[in-house]
């Protein structure tokens, strides 16, 4: 299928702790289409974050095939992988992971510093993106001057400002109240529908998972069934 963005076949991830081998992902086969919005669910320790990290290129598989947009990212060198992430992946974390010493504007600017954009071009992009997440009036605020929901919106702006193909979200609503959580989910849905971003989201929350088009269950490092919503 030409529309497959993420192609995972017999993927295995094993951590070694001392002499002991800890199998975390046993034999994962999964494909994700371009423009998909998929939720990864499962009990704690089932390997959701590990799978997400492999797709995001911040960890390396032990065995199996992992191709993204046709490229076998497990064969990239560390430096190449860093560049690949900078242009292809947007990260959204449970605890926002903003730099506390940088303003909202500067946090969003960070990934753009890895591009060739001029200062003026960066400014234009940052202002546009912060406007999209509804924070144009908070650009000069530091993270500790923002609510959790606002911080997560800054993080979303940081994730999309480089216009990446894939957004990876690890429990993006895990630290938020109901209202902020539904704002964030609405925003992700909108990014998926209007901008065609492929979104892979790990979540514990059934309501959150329902924002996705597909829900995939993991347990003890193996994929269970799949629910597809229309």
């Amino acid at each position, binding site marked *: 299928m030409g529309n497959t963005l993420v192609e995972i076949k017999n993927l295995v991830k094993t951590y070694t702790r001392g002499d002991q081998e800890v199998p975390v992902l046993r034999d994962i086969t999964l494909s994700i289409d371009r423009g998909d919005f998929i939720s990864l669910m499962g009990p704690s320790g089932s390997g959701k974050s590990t799978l997400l*990290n492999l797709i*995001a290129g*911040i*960890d390396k598989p032990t065995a199996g095939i992992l191709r993204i947009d046709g490229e076998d990212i497990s064969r990239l060198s*560390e*430096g190449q992988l*860093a*560049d690949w*992430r*900078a*242009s292809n*992946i947007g*990260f959204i*974390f*449970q*605890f926002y*992971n903003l*730099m*506390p*010493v*940088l303003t909202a504007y*500067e946090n969003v600017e*960070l*990934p753009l*510093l*890895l591009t060739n954009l001029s200062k003026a071009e960066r400014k234009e992009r940052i202002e546009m993106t912060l406007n999209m997440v509804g924070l144009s009036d908070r650009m000069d605020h530091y993270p500790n001057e923002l609510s959790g929901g606002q911080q997560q919106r800054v993080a979303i702006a*940081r994730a999309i400002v480089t216009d990446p193909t894939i957004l990876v979200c690890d429990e993006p609503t895990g630290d938020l109240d109901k209202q902020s959580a539904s704002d964030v989910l609405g925003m992700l849905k909108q990014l998926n529908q209007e901008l065609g971003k492929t979104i892979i989201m790990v979540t514990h929350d059934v309501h959150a998972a329902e924002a996705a088009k597909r829900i995939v269950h993991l347990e003890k490092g193996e994929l269970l069934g799949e629910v597809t919503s229309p």
Partner: protein
Amino acid sequence: MKIPFSYIFRNLWTRKLTTILTAAGMGLVVFVFSAVLMLDAGLKKTMVGTGSLDNVLAIRTGSETEIQSGITRDQAGLLGAMPQVARSKSGDPMVSKESLVLISLTKSGQEKGSNVVARGVSPMGITLRPQVKLIEGRMFRPGSSELVVGRNINREFNGAEIGQSLRFAQRDWVIVGVFDGGGSAFDSEIWGDVEQLMQAFRRLNYSSVIMQLAQQDSFESLLKEIAAEVRLTLDVKREQIFYEDQSRALSTFISILGNVLTVIFSIGAIIGAAITMYSSVAMRTAEIGTLRALGFRRPSILVAFLGESLLLGLVGGLAGLFFASFLQAITISTLNFQSFSQLAFSFTLTPKIVVQTLVFSMFMGFVGGFLPAMRAARMKIVDSLRAA
């Protein structure tokens, strides 16, 4: 550098107290480090300023100092007749035959005496030292028991005012003037008529002979001429080199003392910086993971943390230098054990010292920050993100 400077700077700024304490530790070391350099620079400046490049000084072979040396009247006459020696308008050789004795004077507020150089000079001796200027009173009259004193002597010792008299060699010597030696070692000397001093101390020989060269580059040929004359067993040096050599032992002593202190203190300061930076890395583990996930590479992380540590060193260095600069107001009077006499000099801050000090303080920052920065750069992304 990909990671913005503001990120580096503000991380130091948010940890104000830790930053200030760590920088203060480094500042203290820098203070000691620069104080020693300033002392040494002050000493060198004083000694170099004492000698002039045009002048040549002769002492007896084998004697390190003017005090130990002896030059006979015949030898002095031969020297004055050398063709390389400059002549005054009236045709006299520009030569000063000098005699040095140590006399003991008491400093204000002290009981024990200190050795002071009393230098007998020929009338030409004053002309040969253009840096020496009378600032009070008048010059001594040739053939009299009159003295002029250097400004440090005037300031620091009892009974060294104009009109007062000093008693030594069974005579009373009247002080008639105070001179400024332009920061040279002459400021710590007493000058009088060479023949009077030699009579009083029953000396037959001069201590040294100072000659002005007719041409600066005729020094080599003067050396040859003197070496060829069997009656002259003399060491001849340019005056400036001579005085520089005179302070070498004291200068070495200051440097060794300073280096020992600096090394001991700097180990403490480097450990302090390392602890600060390690805790900075530990507190920001998740941030490091995030930066790496965004696409910043290991070297960028290394540079950011090293930069933070270098900046810490720079802050310490600037603070230490700032406080050390106030030392310039202080003049030290101490024994130059090479010439057994008092020598006064000031802490002197030179551009070279500023650069050396800042390089040193950033070096401390570099050494202290290197291992923590390496740790930051080597962390695995997933591990550091899990630290959140």
